[in-house]
């Protein structure tokens, strides 16, 4: 299965388009997300580790909302999948879904860091 990730210039262009060309705002949004992401991911990991469906629903929802500020459909979908798992209450697939989210963030975060370089 292939996944699409807007990287480099297209990621930057999409964000700039979203904020009306305000480069300083785009940079601030990326910086804030890079700062927030470890905490958001830790909340998701903790919820999966504790097999806490309610906590997973909320943590994944927050991650999904935050990552959706950027053009990164695979990461958004991975977070949304975890939120659905949390809502269902059946966490059997949560581990695999978490690994998928981590993989997508491993692709997205370097691309975002590039925007700050």
């Amino acid at each position, binding site marked *: 299965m292939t996944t699409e990730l807007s990287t480099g210039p297209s990621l930057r262009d999409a964000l700039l388009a979203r904020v009306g060309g305000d480069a300083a705002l785009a940079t601030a949004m990326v910086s804030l997300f890079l700062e927030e992401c470890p905490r958001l991911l830790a909340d998701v990991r903790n919820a999966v580790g504790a097999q806490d469906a309610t906590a997973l629903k909320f943590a994944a929802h927050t991650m999904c909302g935050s990552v959706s*500020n950027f053009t990164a459909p695979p990461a958004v979908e991975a977070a949304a999948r975890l939120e659905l798992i949390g809502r269902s209450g059946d966490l059997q697939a949560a581990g695999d879904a978490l690994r998928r989210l981590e993989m997508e963030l491993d692709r997205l975060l370097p691309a975002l860091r590039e925007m700050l370089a």
Partner: protein
Amino acid sequence: MKKKYTVLLADDDKVQTLMLSTLLRTKGYMVAAAYDATYAFMVAMKSPLDAIVLDIQMPGGTGMGVLERLRASSKTMQIPVIVLSQSTDDKTVAAVKALGADEFLPKPVDPEQLLAALARVLGIAADPDAAAP
């Protein structure tokens, strides 16, 4: 003198709140921010607000709960509320409208859609600097 409209952004998504608050300020709005439901309700009770942009799901309660309390209080029942949600199904939209939301916008929020929604609930032009009395 042009009126400065004050908007509360109540959303735990700090990245989106940064984006929306910056853009609203460039359009002449004054902006307050709250990252959890309890604080959002407290700000709404204590501050003179012209509109509230409210995420449904926040820590410290829910946007639905905040909306219910806003509509139950004589201090806040008249403040227009624009609800944001990643859930755009008919049931969710109907539920927030039933609780008294003035507008519903899907997340991630298109800034132009938010400006248009604010203009509608405030009864002004999309750029308040250009049209405020």
